[in-house]
Structure formats: C-alpha cells, structure tokens
C-alpha cells in the first residue's frame, strides 16, 4: 500500500522534472502565444485543459509552468538551506556571545509570520521570480538555522566529536569531518519535506502578484489571472491549482519516505 503511494509520487515527480527540463516534449506549443479568436474555450481534444482569457492553451501553460514553480521552490529551499547552514554553524561554534546574538536574531525573525518576512524581502528585492525566490529562502532560513544549530550542538557534544578531539584531531578538521556532515544529513531530509512548502509559498507570492509576472506561465500567477473569470472558465483556475496540489503532495510523500528511511538508518 505504502509503496504504491511512494511509487506514484516518484513517477509524478519524474514527469514534473521532464516537464520542467523539456516542456516541449509534453506540450509543443508556445505557452505565451495568444489567440484573440479562441478565448475561453472549454477543455476538448484540441485544448486538453481549455484556453484562457487571451486564448492561450492552458495545458501548454501548465506544462511549461512546472519549470517556474519547481525552480522557485527548489532554489528557495537550497538558498534557505545555505543561509541556515552558515548561520546555524556560526552560532553553534562561535561561543556564547555570538551564539546568543545570532539566535536572538533568528528568534526575532521567527516572531514574524513566514509570509510577512517574505513580504519584507520582496519589498527590498522588488517583485519577480528572483525576489520571490529570495523571499521564500529568507522566510525558511531562521527556522532551519535553529535546526542546524541544535543539531550541530548535539553533534559537537557527541561522543565521536569528543573522541576525535581526544585523539588530537585539529578542530577545523573535526568540524569538516564530523560536525558538518552529521549536521547536514538530517537537514537534507528536512529540506525534502520543506520543498513542498517552498513551492506552495512561492506560488502564493506569485498569486499575490509579487512573484512571477504575467505572462509567465507560473501556476500561482495563472491562478491570479484566472480568478477574475471563474464563472466563464473554471478550467483556467482548476488545472494550475490541481497541479500545484499534486506536486506538493508528491513532494511531501517522497520527503516523508526519505525521512522514514533515514530515521530507520540512523536510529537502529
């Protein structure tokens, strides 16, 4: 049972990656090509998901949109992770004062809702794909940083790090050999689980008009565009949203699977 779910999720993710890398394999058309004479066509054999208010093919846009939605989520997760690793490790390894300062900053940022933090970042960067990606990254970084720090502290006080120090292994080497990899492992799993959230948040920013801009076929942006025409073309809102939901589900299922596996590996 469980395996059916994981396999389905993996297959779907694979399809998404194909859509993101080689969208033309799945939908040959131009996602931004408008056709004033073919607006609001319901789904049929010519337009699998129908057309939107500009006569663009929704299926083509959904397929090509995978690239943008996934890219924002993935880049933000990686970015957030990088910020967090530097931040958390600095805190864990820089003595009491540095630790206190860095963690108080994280506390202060954590006191703000992630979305608000993201909005603040968008204020600086301006809206657009890059801005939204950075915003999501910064939004998840403080939480990650705390995890990194906590994990790094656990590792730093662990028997094997003490043993290495006890063997006279130089400190930088200990950090490189033991602290970093053992901190990073659990974090990677966490990142997989977070990826779904990042994709979702990125799409939310686009939905709020702060991320990808029209005519980019990003799913969140497509939802905003179609919201005004719900009564005329429900399909233009249904399919991008559905893809978003399926993607997040697939990523979550895959992430949880990875989490279970890694916990199994480290625990027993």
């Amino acid at each position, binding site marked *: 049972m469980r395996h059916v779910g994981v396999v389905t999720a993996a297959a779907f993710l694979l399809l998404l990656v194909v859509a993101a890398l080689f969208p033309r394999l799945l939908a040959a058309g131009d996602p*931004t090509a*408008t056709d004033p004479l073919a607006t609001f066509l319901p789904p049929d054999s010519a337009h699998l998901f129908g057309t939107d*208010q*500009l006569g663009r093919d929704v299926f083509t846009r959904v397929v090509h949109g995978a690239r943008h939605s996934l890219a924002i989520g993935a880049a933000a997760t990686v970015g957030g992770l990088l910020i967090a690793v530097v931040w958390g490790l600095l805190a864990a390894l820089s003595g009491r004062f540095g630790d206190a300062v860095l963690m108080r900053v994280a506390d202060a940022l954590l006191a703000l809702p992630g979305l608000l933090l993201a909005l603040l970042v968008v204020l600086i960067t301006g*809206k657009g794909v890059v801005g939204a990606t950075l915003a999501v990254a910064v939004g998840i970084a403080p939480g990650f940083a705390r995890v990194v720090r906590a994990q790094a502290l656990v590792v730093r006080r662990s028997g094997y790090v003490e043993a290495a120090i006890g063997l006279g292994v130089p400190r930088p080497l200990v950090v490189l050999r033991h602290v970093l990899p053992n901190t990073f492992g659990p974090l990677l799993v966490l990142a997989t689980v977070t990826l779904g959230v990042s994709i979702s948040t990125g799409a939310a920013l686009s939905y709020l008009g702060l991320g990808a*801009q029209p005519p980019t076929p990003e799913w969140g942006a497509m939802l905003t565009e179609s*919201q005004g025409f719900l*009564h005329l073309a429900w399909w233009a809102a249904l399919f991008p949203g559905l893809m978003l939901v399926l993607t997040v589900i697939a990523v979550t299922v895959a992430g949880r699977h990875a989490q279970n596996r890694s916990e199994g590996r480290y625990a027993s």
Partner: protein
Amino acid sequence: MPPSRAVLAAAVLIALAACGTQNTGGGGGGQAAKPATSGTLTHAVNEEPDCWDPHVSAQDVTSFLQRPVYDSLVYQTPDGALEPWLATKWEISPDSKAYTFTLREDVVFHDGAKLDAEAVKANFDHITAKETNSQYAAGLLGPYKGVSVVGPYQVKIEFDRPYVPFLQAASTTALGIASPATLKAGPDKLCAAGDGSVGSGPFKSGAYVRGQERTYTKNAAYDWAPKSAGHTGPARLDTLKVRFIGEEATRVGALTSGQVDTASAIPANQLGLLKADPNLQVLDKQVPGAVNAFYLNTKGALFSDVRVRQAFQRAIDIDTLVKSVFQGLYQRAWSPLSPTTPASYDASLENTWPPDPALAAKLLDEAGWTGRDAEGYRTKDGKRLTVVAPIYGEASTFSQAVQGDLKKSGIYLELLASTDAIEIGGRLDEGRYDVVELSWARGDGDILSHFFFSDQTSKNSGHNFAQVTDPQVDAWLTAAQTAQEPARRAAEYAKVQKWAIENAVVVPTYVDTQNLGASKKVRDLRLGISAHPEFYGAWVEAP
C-alpha cells in the same frame, strides 16, 4: 495607470458625442409608480480612496465618492453643459483671465455654517496652500494667480494667462466646496472621511470602515440642486452605502446575489451574465477625455526613430483585440480623445491608420531590427526589440493581449506592473520607459495639453509621457486655452490630434466605457458627465 485611477472632469460647453447605443439613464422598464422618498441603496465600487480629501487626492474614485457630500460652484450636466449650482452666475473677463462668481445665499453646510464668499476663498486657499500637498486639484487650476472676495457673496478667481478650461474644472469634485471650519482640521482628519468630510451636498458623511464600507445619510435640509439634476429638494434615499470590492468576480457576484443594488466598473466579460439576468439592468457610457492609449517615448533610444514608432502603431491588430477582450462591447479608438469629449474630437481620423503588419515589418527592417532570437523576437546588434511598459497596478487583460499580438511582429512588450509608486514614479520621471499605457478622463479637449504640451513632463507633474517638445503643438494648445468660442478650440485640438497620430507619438486603442450593473428595482439613477452614477435622485422600489 489604469482608467479607473484617472481623474474625470467635464467639458465646458456642449456635449457633442452621442454614441450609438448608450444607455445612461436608469429606470429600467415601464413608468415607475410614485418615487419612494426613503430607503437604502448599496453600491459596490472597485477601488477605495487612499485619501478622502478631494482637494488632495488624485484618485478618480475620491472625486466620485465625495460628490454626494461636496457641491461645486458649477454643475455639469451628463451631456456636458455647464449650469449654475452653488454659484448663481459668473462673469469671465474678456481676456479670459478672471472669473467672478456670484453665490447662492441660502446654502448651509452640514455643520451649520453658511456658504459665503469667504468660505469659497478659504477653499481655494486650502487647495493651493503648500501644506495641503494637493496632488491634483491645484494642478487643475493651471496658471492660478489668486482668489479675492468681491462682496459677501461674490468671489473672483484670477489667472496669470488666459485659462478657459477653468470653468469646467470648477465643476469637478476636486474643486468642491467644503465647510471652511473643517479645512483647518488638518490632513489626517480630511483624509480619513467620516466626520472629517463636511460639505453642503445632498448626503452627509456617515460611518466608514476602511476596506469595507462607507455610509452616507440624507441631508434633509438640501434645497439647492442644480436645475438639470432631475430632482429637487432632499435626496430620495435615506441612506447610501458604498462597499469596496476590488475583485471583479466578487463584485459581480455581490450584485447578482443581491448583496448590493448597484455595482460600477463591471468588466466587459461579465456583462453577458448581467444582461441575461432578468432582475438586472446595465447602464453604460463612454468616458470622455483621453482614451486608453500607448504614449511612445519619443526621447527614448528606441522610439526616437519615427519608423519604429510607426511600426509599433501599425503592428497591433487593435480591432480584433478590442473585440475579443471586451466581447465586442467597447469601441476601438482612432484619436487620443474620446468621442464623448465635447467640442474637440476629430472624427476625421477614423480608419486612417488600419493595422498593417507588413508595413510594420518593412519599417522595422529599415530601422535595422532585422535579426531574430530564439523566441522569435526581432533583434538589432544582438539586442532584443524590447518595449518597456511600466504599469501602475496590474497588467490588464488588454495589455497582455497586445503583448501577445506584438510578439507576432517580433516585438517584445515588457509589462512592468507594480503598485509601487516609488518604482513606477522613478521610472516615469527619469524617462526609463518606452511606452506608457493609460487613459485619463476629462470632458475637455484641454486634456491634450496635459499630454502634449512641452512643459507637462512627468517630472513637472504633467503627463507628457510621449515627451513631445514641439513649438507648433504648444502654440496650438495655447490658442485653444485662450479662445472662448468652442468651434475655434475644436479646430486647434483637431490639429493636435492629427499631428499626434501622424507622428506616431500615441497609439490610441479603445474608448474607456463605464458599465454599471444595477438591480431593476433601482430607479432614476443616471450616469453623470464623468460616467459615474449620480445618486441624488435615485430611489429603490420596495420589494
């Protein structure tokens, strides 16, 4: 700058345009029984004023929503004629530099103060005071010199040079007359609506919840409506409520589900729905002033070449796009002015510059844009043919349709949409754009001055986004501001329109049209000159 944000004003003299199928007066169906003199009407608008002080705000919606509270010296009828309101009469000096108004003596503000010459002077002083930071009203006064009290009920406004458009300006809400006591209350209070808004209008300002609703209550003492208002004495409605619903689908839903009685700015694609509903009626009116158009930055690197401008002008299949996006309900524009703009529209421009992609291609080839990149856009020296278009707010469906259409000609229209005034304002002031798309409603051909007079640059707080600096154009516009005879002004304005099209400094697209959805129970509601509803005479049939 979408049309909704533009400021509406009106024409000085006669309304010329009678546009085919307009239905500007409401009443729906057969003769009404006796009009009710009580009741509540709820109206939905798409926008909410940031600041409610019409002397300060540049927003169209402020003018519209404060109209029930503030009266003006002059009233402009829906077809554009000017008639006495708070002023019983006026005299214009022969040199068109001085205007003397004689005021009604029976007008009482909501706070009990009486209208007199001092009150009017206080208003003009407030508008032009530096501290007011007026964003629009002061600009409407143009070459304003000063105001003086001539008698207890006589006041004189003077200008540095002839300024004929002033009389029409005096009819706008932006130059509405507030109770002088409230003008001293400070910007906070005036901006905040509620009890800060005290005028002499048929409705008093009532409860206000930002983001949600504003209430108006009947001014029972009202007895100074202009002659053509369609009604006399106090307003018929006891209460008027205005709800702020920005989301189009939601606004329409609120109307169809009966949550509101009327809703303005109904998008064209929703009109079919409303017209099919037996309980609803649709009022529409073409907005006067500058139509929705692209202004091409003639000082920019790209569009300083007239061939590229002409290519842009002829590449767009405007007819098809307007028909598609607006479901055949909007009229395609041929001139920068709306046909409903009184005494200025040049109808001879119609059909003179049809879409011609072949010509556009030829012109672009000549201009050196011969390369093609991977996405099919034209390039020159490896650089893509990109037309930067800053947009305040969101890119409209129409803008996107144009974007899609231009792609066919290898032109990339980059829509930079933002509500960030810092970014957009900076861009416009510094000339970092190729086109600006906007409409700017005003019932007077003088709107052309805002767009084409050489000193009306963005930096100088004007709207000369095409960056036109042509002495000939300036001369025509000055002549039009000086002449008092409508026909002479119309002739001057026609020259400007023709010049603008021929030099491809502007690409007019469609005539902005107000569509108002209303329950059939709403009676005697009419669209004013600004194409906004006038609630004074309206009433709602008992269910």
